[in-house]
Structures are given as structure tokens and as C-alpha cells.
């Protein structure tokens, strides 16, 4: 607990301890014409830190395309909203909870879920799905199992209790996250397009109401913690851990949605990081008003809490709302029905200031716009763009290695093994809409009361982004769009979480900028706007920055939910085709990155890309084929290339006795291992009944993509090259056995 009170004179040293730089400190004193008191300093530290102000990233994020005919709300609100027709809107966003999850993985992950849920229902949307992107250290690192199992139980305990299905996600292990795990959670909800709520504090004299859990000393300095790197001893940060209460959140969710249906509130916002401070300031800022808070009314969990602590507490499951004057009673009634207490703690004012009273004393008086619009923005130094000139990892692979063994090795690796132990712990079926379950390229949820369905995917590819940030980011967006297309969904918008190292390192800032450029380019050409997102910087330990890890969460629209397909093979005798770009694929791009990394630990070579126009054509071809009901399965080729994709379509098959019998096309040149495991952008394998082949051909020609017949669905996993004896020939069992238990003990 902080000993200073509001009368002690604040020195630069204290400001520095609060993460306020000496220049910022000067700026504050100059603008105010005085030295801020301790509570005010706390408020600055919260508002001006990286987490709230985006001071290092803001100038870059402006480059994202954020508009389309469907976008009803772009970045800047609690969540973005898109219009999917019939007055149905989808609100969605992704949030990181990396640092809290490293300190206490169960609670950190759980409260991460809580935070993103609140962002969604404050928009007036009922949350319909959660997805998680989780990155852990090397699978053999001593702490990895502790982190992976705790994070998954944390997500599961919170999401399951609330009753929002976790329908998808991604899980990766890599040594770059040994000292800094990533926990990103995405949530989407449904609302009526004509009833979007925003975090506004308008109407002078309207009451400001506090609702939800009591305020404790949780996470004081949590927001600042999230913005500074880790040192060895996390023990000093321990008392700030926040414990989540999913039950209270469920009550808040139901009460808020009921409230929003009753025409009594103006605006509502979650007290997330930097709690009461950021919620009140941001609401006033959006409406260009002021707020007067009387902190004596704040419900406190602990005795003798002072204004500084109340303003900075990060206790979970709390909301701030502005109601219409005279409707306080109605607000109170609705919340009490849900066993929640409300407390009026202030009002909207017209002086554009944040004023705070405590014990009849004014403890804060700060101009709102100085806290928000005039918060520092940095154009951080960047090193020159430089592709890492690393050797192509195929050089380390022995051409004569047994190819079957290589496949089994991939299947047995935690990054590709069976993820069921994770998603079986998540209630992925509640709300009875999940029509494509986790374990696929994308998951699909239907919208009751309409024919529509939504497809969701989260993807990242840190290795490609490390090797080549611009193209890595481009690749990731293309991959997400392709994942959705495999379900027959049209990609319509995305959210993202940009997980990077220390922005004060010019190399990191260069990576950041290039990733933003790559994303922007892909988004504008594919016409997929960015509608919300989150930036997590200072992901580093001992000066080692993590690989740049932009995580993309993309939403796709399916007009007829009966027309979507799984990734697993369905019928014996179906033909297997490969859809790929018509442009010539340089052999160089066919690098078996994942296999090389698993076998030799080497990462290098080129990040695979395709032109955006050919990516679009491949995606459209698949979408059209699904929409016309031509194909029975579709699966994206990603890490591990063709061989792994075929294995996944085998493993996902309901029947557990169907597998590919494939002959590598003559047109494939180069080393066989590179053809089997090489990672080329924009390829999809589909299976279909012979009678639909000609129709598929027509679509492919129309879209100008290459359609290659590679085999049929049989009862084994068999691959031939040009010789008469197969190069891989496995019973399905063998594939299953290698894959099934590779994550034993991790979750």
C-alpha cells in the first residue's frame, strides 16, 4: 500500500516510479501550472501508460483500413460492430492478458476472459462465442506444463460458468515464450443494429452509477505492470493479483442486458485496467463532458481505502454507467433483481474536467482532454527494415530421412497433436449453436431465428513474422481468410492482438511497423476491415523480446448454415483435389519450415506468400464450392504442408477409418520432403463426389485457380510419388496413435 498522501510533495522520482518520464512530468506540470498531487499522479500514470494511451503504437495503428459497408462501429469503442443483415450486428474484440497470466496463470487467464466478455456486453450484445489464442514456452521447459494446464483451467472455469461457449482457439509452444506466455481471448456477441450501446457520459446532471463487485486493492499498479517487462522476482508484484468471480459476471451480464432493454441508460463501460479512472475519463472524453465523482460512495472491500487506491484499483466485475436522470430507481430495481447493488457516485458535468471529492475535499481536478487527447504519443525510433538472412532450413534436412517417420514426428509434436484435452475442458456447446466444433480450420455457430451462421478463427504465425514481419503478417491474414473460406464463409472483418517486445527497442518497433503495414495491405486488398483490437507491448524477459506475434481473430459470414463442411473426409471413394494459385510457385517458397524446426531446431528461409489476388481467388473458389454444395470436406494447408493437412483430414473424419490415397502430381518438382511438408501459401484440399468434379472445375476456371486431382479417399494413409511403391503407407491407427496423446500431461 502506498504511504504517500495527497499532501506530500511529489518529486520527479515518484513520477518515474509511476512510469511517467521526466519529459512527461514536465509536460504535466506546465499544463496544469502546478504539481499534481498523489492521486492525480496515479491517474496520469494510469491514463498515460502504454496500455491505455497506446502511446507507442497509435501512429501506426492509424494505417489500418477500418471501414466497409458492414462496419457499424470501428476501433475506439469497447468493441467493433459489423452488420450481417436482417438487423443483426456482431460485436467482437480480442484482448491480451499476458502479464497477469504469467504471474498467476489460472486467475490471469480467467480474468482475461472476464474482461473481454464485459467489453462485448457493454455494447449491448449478448456474448455468443469465445476463442483463445495461447502461446507457451518450449514444451520441455520446466514451467511450461504448469502454465499450460493452469491457463486452460482458468479459461475453462470462467467461460463455462458464464455459459458462453469457447468454440475455438490455437495453442502453440515455442521457446520464445519461455519467460513470457501469451494469453489472448476473443469474444463475439450479437446485438440489434439499431440498438448499439456506447460508452458515453452525456447529459449534464445525469447520475454516474457504480455497480458490481466491491473495490479492493487488487491490481493497484496492474495497468502499469502490464506495460513493463518482467524481472526475475515476480514476488513483489504478487499482492496485486486479481481473483475473478464468474458468477458475479454472469449476474452483471444478465442485469446489463436487461437494463439496456429498458431505456434508462446513456452509457456504460467496464472498469477494466485502470478501473474507475479509465472508465470515467474515457466516457467523458467521448461525449466531451466532465465527470464529478464523490468517492465516499464507492463500495470498498477493504478498510481505509484512499482515493488513490480507489481510482487505480483493478478489481474485476465492476461497471460504471451513466443513467438518465430520474431513472435511478429503475436501474436500482433491475440490478437488485440480480442481487447486485448500485451506488450513485457522481454526475456528468459540463466543465470537461475530472473532479473528485473525498471527505468533502477536492482531491483531483484535471482536464479530461489533457488526460486523453493530449496524452503523449511517441514516434519511437525504428531500425531499418531488414529481412533476416538465414539459410533455408531444408539444407539441414536429410533428403533420405524416412518420410513416414517425419510425418509421425509432426503429429506427435505438441504444436500439432490432438488439442481435445484443451477444448474438452471448455463448454463449447452451450447455447446450442455450435455446428462446427473446435478442432477445425474455423468453428461455426449458427444464428437462431435466421438461416445465417458465423465462422470464427484465430491465427498467428510468429516464426514467419520473425523472419519477415511484413510478409508474415500478410500471410497470417491470408491464412485466417482461408480458414473461414474452408467453411464456405465470406470473411467480413477482423480483430487482432499485437503481441510484441519492448517498443523502446528500435528493432521491435520496426517489426511492429512492418507487421502493421503487412496487415493493412492484406486487409485492404482482401476488403476485410479491422474493427477492434489490442496491443500488448513489453513482452520480454531479461531484454529478450518475444517473436513478433500478431494474433488475428477473423469473422466470416455463412448465409445458409446448412451449407458448411467439416475438414475431415466423409465418404469412401470421394476424390481429393488440391486448389492452389495459378501463378508459378517458386520452389524456394516450398520450405518445410515446421519439419525443419522440429527436427533440427533451425528457423530460417523465406516466409511463404502468394499474391493477394490469387489468395482471394483460391478462397472464393472454396467458398463457392461449399455454397453450391459441391464438396464434402475442405481443409487449409498450413504448417507441415500437404502431408500434415492430409493427416488432419484423416484424424478429423467422423469415421476414423478414412484416409487419403494420394499420388503426388508430376508437375511437382524438387525434393520429395519439400513437396510433402513444404509450406506454400494459399492451398486447400477438398474431397468430393466424382459427379461434382466438372462443376468444381468450372468454378476454378472462372476464378483462375489451379485445380489438381491428387487422389481418392480410401481406408489407409498412402502417398505415392512417381515410383510404384508408396513413400508413406500407414494404417489409420498409426496416424491416430501418433497424434492422440501427444499433449498428455499438458492440460
Amino acid at each position, binding site marked *: 500500500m502506498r504511504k504517500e498522501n495527497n499532501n506530500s510533495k511529489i518529486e520527479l522520482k515518484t513520477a518515474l516510479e509511476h512510469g511517467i518520464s521526466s519529459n512527461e512530468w514536465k509536460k504535466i506540470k506546465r499544463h496544469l501550472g502546478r504539481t499534481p498531487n498523489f492521486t492525480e499522479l496515479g491517474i496520469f500514470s494510469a491514463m498515460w501508460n502504454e496500455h491505455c494511451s497506446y502511446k507507442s503504437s497509435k501512429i501506426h495503428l492509424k494505417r489500418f483500413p477500418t471501414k466497409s459497408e458492414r462496419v457499424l462501429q470501428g476501433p475506439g469503442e469497447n468493441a467493433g460492430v459489423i452488420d450481417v443483415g436482417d438487423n443483426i450486428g456482431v460485436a467482437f474484440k480480442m484482448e491480451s492478458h499476458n502479464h497477469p497470466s504469467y504471474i498467476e496463470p489460472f486467475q490471469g487467464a480467467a480474468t482475461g476472459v472476464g474482461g473481454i466478455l464485459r467489453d462485448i456486453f457493454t455494447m449491448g450484445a449478448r456474448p455468443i462465442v469465445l476463442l483463445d489464442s495461447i502461446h507457451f514456452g518450449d514444451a520441455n521447459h520446466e514451467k511450461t506444463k504448469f502454465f499450460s494446464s493452469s491457463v486452460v*483451467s482458468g479459461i*475453462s*472455469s470462467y467461460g*463455462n*460458468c*458464464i*455459459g458462453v461457449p469457447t468454440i475455438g482457439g490455437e495453442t502453440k509452444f515455442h521457446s520464445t515464450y519461455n519467460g513470457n506466455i501469451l494469453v489472448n481471448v476473443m469474444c463475439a456477441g450479437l446485438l440489434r443494429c439499431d440498438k448499439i450501446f456506447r460508452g458515453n457520459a452525456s447529459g449534464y446532471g445525469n447520475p454516474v452509477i457504480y455497480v458490481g463487485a466491491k473495490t479492493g486493492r487488487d491490481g493497484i499498479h496492474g495497468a502499469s505492470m502490464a506495460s513493463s517487462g518482467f524481472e526475475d522476482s515476480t514476488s513483489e508484484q504478487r499482492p496485486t493479483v486479481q481473483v475473478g*468471480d*464468474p*458468477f*458475479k459476471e*454472469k*449476474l452483471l451480464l*444478465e442485469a446489463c442486458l436487461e437494463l439496456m432493454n429498458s431505456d434508462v441508460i446513456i452509457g456504460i463501460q467496464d472498469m477494466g485496467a485502470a478501473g474507475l479512472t479509465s472508465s470515467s475519463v474515457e466516457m467523458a472524453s467521448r461525449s466531451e463532458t466532465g465527470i464529478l465523482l464523490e468517492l465516499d460512495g464507492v463500495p470498498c472491500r477493504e478498510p481505509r481505502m484512499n482515493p488513490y487506491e480507489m481510482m487505480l484499483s483493478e478489481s474485476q466485475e465492476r461497471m460504471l454507467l451513466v443513467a438518465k436522470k430520474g431513472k435511478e430507481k429503475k436501474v436500482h430495481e433491475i440490478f437488485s*433483481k*440480480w*442481487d447486485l447493488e448500485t451506488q450513485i457516485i457522481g454526475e456528468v458535468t459540463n466543465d470537461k474536467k475530472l473532479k473528485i471529492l473525498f471527505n468533502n475535499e477536492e482531491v483531483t481536478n484535471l482536464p479530461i482532454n489533457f488526460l486523453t487527447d493530449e496524452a503523449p504519443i511517441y514516434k519511437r525510433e525504428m531500425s531499418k527494415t531488414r529481412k533476416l538472412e538465414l539459410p533455408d532450413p531444408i539444407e539441414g534436412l536429410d533428403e533420405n530421412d524416412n518420410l513416414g517417420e517425419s510425418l509421425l514426428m509432426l503429429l506427435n509434436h505438441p504444436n500439432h497433436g490432438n488439442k481435445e484435452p484443451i*477444448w*474438452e*475442458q*471448455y*463448454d*463449447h*456447446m*452451450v*447455447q*446450442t449453436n*455450435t*455446428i462446427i466444433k473446435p478442432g477445425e480450420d474455423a468453428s461455426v455457430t*449458427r444464428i*437462431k431465428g435466421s438461416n445465417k451462421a458465423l465462422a470464427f478463427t484465430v491465427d498467428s504465425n510468429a516464426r514467419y513474422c520473425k523472419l519477415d514481419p511484413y510478409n508474415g503478417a500478410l500471410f497470417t491474414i491470408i491464412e485466417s481468410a482461408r480458414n473461414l473460406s474452408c467453411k464456405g464463409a465470406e470473411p467480413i472483418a477482423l480483430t487482432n492482438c499485437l503481441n510484441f517486445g519492448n517498443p523502446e527497442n528500435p528493432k521491435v518497433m520496426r517489426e511492429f511497423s512492418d507487421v502493421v503495414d503487412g496487415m493493412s495491405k492484406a486487409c485492404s486488398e482482401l476488403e476485410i476491415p479491422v474493427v477492434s483490437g489490442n496491443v500488448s507491448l513489453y513482452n520480454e524477459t531479461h531484454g529478450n523480446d518475444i517473436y513478433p506475434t500478431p494474433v488475428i481473430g477473423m469473422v466470416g459470414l455463412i448465409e445458409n*448454415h*446448412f451449407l458448411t463442411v467439416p475438414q475431415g473426409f466423409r465418404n469412401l471413394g470421394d476424390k481429393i483435389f488440391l486448389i492452389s494459385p495459378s501463378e508459378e510457385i517458386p520452389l524456394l517458397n516450398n520450405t518445410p519450415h515446421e519439419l525443419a524446426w522440429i527436427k533440427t531446431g533451425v528457423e530460417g528461409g523465406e516466409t511463404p506468400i502468394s499474391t493477394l489476388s490469387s489468395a482471394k481467388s483460391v478462397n472464393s473458389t472454396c467458398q463457392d464450392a461449399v455454397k453450391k454444395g459441391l464438396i464434402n470436406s475442405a481443409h487449409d494447408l498450413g504448417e507441415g504442408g500437404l502431408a500434415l493437412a492430409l493427416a488432419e483430414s484423416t484424424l478429423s473424419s467422423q469415421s476414423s477409418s478414412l484416409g487419403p490415397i494420394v499420388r503426388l502430381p508430376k508437375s511437382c518438382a524438387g525434393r520429395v520432403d519439400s513437396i510433402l511438408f513444404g509450406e506454400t501459401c494459399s492451398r486447400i484440399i477438398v474431397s468430393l463426389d466424382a459427379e461434382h468434379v466438372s462443376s468444381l472445375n468450372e468454378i476454378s476456371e472462372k476464378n483462375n485457380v489451379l485445380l489438381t486431382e491428387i487422389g481418392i479417399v480410401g481406408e489407409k494413409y498412402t502417398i505415392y510419388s512417381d515410383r510404384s511403391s508408396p513413400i508413406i503407407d500407414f494404417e489409420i491407427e498409426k496416424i491416430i496413435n501418433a497424434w492422440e496423446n501427444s499433449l498428455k500431461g499438458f492440460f
Partner: protein
Amino acid sequence: MGFAVIVFPGSNCDHDCFHAICNLLEKPVRYIWHGDTSIEKNEIVIIPGGFSYGDYLRAGAIAKTSPIMKSIKKHANEGRPVIGICNGFQILAESDLLPGTLIRNSSLKFICKNIWIRCESSHSIFTNKMKNKEVLKMPIAHGEGNFFCKKNILEDLEYNQQIIFRYSDSSGSIVKSANPNGSLKNIAGISNKEGNVLGLMPHPERACESILGGKDGLKIFSSALSYSTS
């Protein structure tokens, strides 16, 4: 004649049950808030799944103190049908409307997946639309579904034919590998001695449409309905 879905703070399968009855079974259904007390005599009560009161203390423990529980007890004691699904089963066990108790899964983990259950007799109120020993496919989604009771109670359950569903494999064999949570004797659902109160861990309301993987769940609701109307 219709269904009433009880809503506790923290229920989260209430909407799903409502949807299943209203749109798939196409029968009348309404919600009853846990703070209310009136149940119509001819209503079939469903206590849905979820985490009533966060499942704090013990799953279902706090819910049993809600006002509606008195009315449910009365309803049950008058021989009218009550179905507790998942958390609803836990609440019924806590309220002594059903014997035994549901403790943590033997894996200590929450499990959500499709499983098979076998209906032990087609004579009960809730299985009269099924064949004897019919095997049904249905999801489970729980962390505390491990049915436990004392030996003498288990004997009573068997003797009185109160075991309505057991976890089985797809062919109907009651084997250990088909038991997802460690329940005694693979028990997935039981009734009270009179047979009008059913508790089961699997979620029939999630298995009422082909697009979600099957319609077996409807049979439980329609059995209860045909009993009530007869």
C-alpha cells in the same frame, strides 16, 4: 399442459431448454424465476444446467435455499414430473429430492463431449418413448458429475429400478471406458423412488436437432409429456 424452465441466477442452459421445447418439441413452455413460487399443477418442471450461484460451496448447494424450491418439492411430492439436468440434477440431490450426491469428476477436470447413455428401462415416466436398453447419444458438460452414494442406497436404487440411464459405449455395453466421470456403476441419471423426479448429467436439450449431432434428447421430453397427458 406444458413445461416450466426454472431460472436461477447462474443458470445458463435455461435458454437452450426453452428453445428445445418451444421450437423443436413445439410445445408450450415458460420461464419461472427462482424467486417466484407458483407452479401450475399440470406443468413439467425443468431445472436447467448452469452454475447456479457459481457452484460455490458445492454445486447446487445454495440454489436449494431459493424460494422456488419449496414449490418444486411440493410439485414433486404430488407426483408431478420434475427433470433436473446437470446442475439441475445437482440441485435435486442437494435438496434431497434425489438420493446420492455428485462429486468432482475423477479426472478433476470439466468435460464437455458427446457420450452414449443406455436407458435402463422403457417403463419410466421419462423413457416411455424409448425402446428397452435403447442407446442414446448426448453431450455432457460438467466438472462435478461423479455420482456417489452409500452402498445401501445403491442397492435401493437398483432394487427399485431408479437407475434410469447409465453411461455405455455406442453398442450399449456398460463398460468402464465409457464412464466419463467416475460415477458409481456408470450411473448417468436416476429417479426418485416414485419415479416422477429425474436427474441426469447429460444434456438432452443439446441433442434435439440433427445439425447439432442428433435428436435423441427429444425422447426424454416427449416421454414426460406423454406420461403427463395420459
